[in-house]
């Protein structure tokens, strides 16, 4: 008995609801497909942009430093790239008598064109990168990036700054 009563109550509730919704429900045949298409496009867009933002890498190969790997470079084929603690970049080119030209301050914006010009003059140029320990890593990446972008033979190696290098940089303006 109790069960039957419950059923009746449920039915009357349904009836009431149907009556209430009848007028509204008739018109709601909305085609979802265009909206779905747009949302799918948006999704694809966002997914692609996130993929593009993933970090990339800059490959570095250091010389192995073994005896058979030692490369002799002519003194006049050496380009010293010194960077001071303050982040100033100085280029000086080796000369045949083991000396080097006076350091020239190079702006990072002109670095690439300068490198290309110097490599056109001497295609065998080897870059010796002497970075001050107090310099920011950001600048190192910027310089390597410019070297990678320049249309030159990417021949470079890292060398620690020594007493003479500090003197040269100091004299040129720090």
């Amino acid at each position, binding site marked *: 008995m109790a069960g039957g009563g419950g059923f009746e109550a449920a039915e009357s509730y349904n009836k009431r609801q149907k009556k209430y919704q009848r007028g509204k429900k008739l018109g709601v045949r909305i085609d979802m497909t265009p909206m779905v298409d747009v949302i*799918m496009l948006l999704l694809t867009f966002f997914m692609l942009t996130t993929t593009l933002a993933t970090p990339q890498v800059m490959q570095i190969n250091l010389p*192995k430093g073994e005896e058979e790997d030692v490369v002799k470079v002519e003194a006049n084929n050496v380009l010293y790239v010194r960077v001071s603690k303050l982040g100033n970049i100085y280029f000086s080119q080796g000369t045949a008598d083991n000396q080097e030209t006076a350091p020239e301050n190079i702006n990072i914006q002109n670095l690439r064109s300068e490198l290309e010009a110097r490599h056109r003059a001497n295609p065998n140029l080897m870059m010796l990168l002497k970075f001050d*320990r107090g310099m920011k*890593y950001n600048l190192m990446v910027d310089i390597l990036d410019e070297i990678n*972008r320049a249309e030159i033979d990417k021949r470079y190696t890292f060398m620690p700054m020594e007493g003479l290098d500090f003197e040269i940089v100091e004299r040129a303006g720090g």
Partner: protein
Amino acid sequence: MGKSRSTKKPGINIDMTPLVDVIMLLLTFFMLTATFKAAESELVEVTLPQSVNTDSTRLPEQDILTLTLTPAGDIWVDVDSYEVRKEVFGDAFGIGLYHPDSTSKSEFELTGKVGDKALNRTVLLLDKEGFEKVINDLRIALKNMSDNARDYKIVIKGDKESNYGVVEDLMTSLKATKNTRFALVTDLKSD
């Protein structure tokens, strides 16, 4: 009653399938990003420098040995395999810390934090010899696990504000352990 049913039924004929498709896509998308966030939170976070990098090499997917440089001058050694970590660091969530500047203490030793974040991992403090040994051990452990088939790709994730001196010390150590190929991780610069 029969009449009311027949007038109502044609109106609620909404096909749910496309909606479900979209919801599934959204779900997949958010689940994937959530996974990335979770993995990120157990790492040491740094602000990467930007580069244009014309050869557009992407970060490898697996077998990466990450060396993270913080602005405080610390080097964090981490790999992506739990088994290798367990073998070398003695803990599946172990991480190595090397502070090349012997005149000062690492940021983690001083504050117990990295930047302003606490690190929920077992930290193994390393000196120069220990660091070079760990680099070797990590490679040996992976090779033993995979019958020499796999090898670590070394990537350096440097904070743009860290000093070049740390990078120089790191390169010296890498060279000493015969690791002359490595990669610097950068963000793409729109130029």
